[in-house]
């Protein structure tokens, strides 16, 4: 990998890292959700400087080139994040359902109490 490419990847990773940290600071992104992205960036930054290691790993998995392995790893990572998002959406749907039901039941109880109060 050329020095220029290494620097380019490092720069992009650093900008992304700063962006994530800023989002955490302004509470747009929770610490828990930022962790996965920070780990990804750490892996990228560490692996950029160690091409021979990457080559060895690619060879171990029977993947011909390092770039192919990186594409595959990226794809897996995005799949994982996507699945995690779907899970979160399902959980949140359930919470919204419960909240809506509880709100409606409370509203009904309030109306009923008001009516009986008036009758008394």
């Amino acid at each position, binding site marked *: 990998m050329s020095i220029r490419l290494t620097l380019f990847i490092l720069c992009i990773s650093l900008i992304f890292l700063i962006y994530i940290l800023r989002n955490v600071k302004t509470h747009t992104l929770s610490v828990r959700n930022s962790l996965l992205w920070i780990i990804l960036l750490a892996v990228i930054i560490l692996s950029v400087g160690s091409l021979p290691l990457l080559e060895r790993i690619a060879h171990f998995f029977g993947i011909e080139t390092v770039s192919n392995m990186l594409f595959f790893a990226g794809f897996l990572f995005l799949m994982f994040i996507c699945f995690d998002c779907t899970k979160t959406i399902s959980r949140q*749907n359930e919470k919204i*359902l419960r909240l*809506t039901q509880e709100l*409606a039941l409370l509203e009904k109880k309030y109306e009923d109490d008001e009516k009986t109060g008036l009758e008394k």
Partner: protein
Amino acid sequence: MKVLIIVPCYNEEKNIERTIEGIIEKGYDYVIIDDGSKDASLEIARKNNYQVIHLSNNLGIGGAMQTGYRYAARNGYDVAVQIDGDGQHNVEEVEKLIQPIRDGLCNMVIGSRFIDNKGFQSSTMRRVGIRLLSWLMKLFSGQEILDMTSGFRAIDKSLIRRFSDRYPSEYPEPVTNLQVTKLGYKIKEVPAMMNERQQGRSSIFGIKNVYYMLNVIFQLILIQLSGEN
């Protein structure tokens, strides 16, 4: 026995008054669950001083019915009967649904179109689909239920408690039929006449029918495979 009729209602401004007046005439306790209707259903209900629970978000039939079951559980009802707000079900037949529960014969009673084959029978395509669901039900649980998608159902206290806690958001009727049978609850079917919807369109129509069927079949298979309870 305290009986509550739960009337899920989504955009039923043309039917709701007729349905509720019929229930009031018979003297049953009832509650309308307005599932975030966009038409005047809620205003009509409020204007007439009907018992109504208003959901601020549209939760779908499962979420709406579960709200009704929770209301029934909190207010100590022994039996909950579902009657759709679109005038499909006959309030005169509610007694037939409650009787087997009163006699302690079962936990759930389904009003079925396909025992006497009287009244509105729904389209051919839908009937084929429903027959397929019945076949799967029989295959997976050994229990025969002819009208798997019927919403005209009565349940006892034990199921009110269970459904308040867990009730599927989508396709609740066929899914719960299989779930509760596998858990050992008893279901009985009684003949019931259904009317064609008086006004408006059913929420399941056209291509959605096929999608509906595929989804339900998939869920039934999942229940069978996972032994979900």
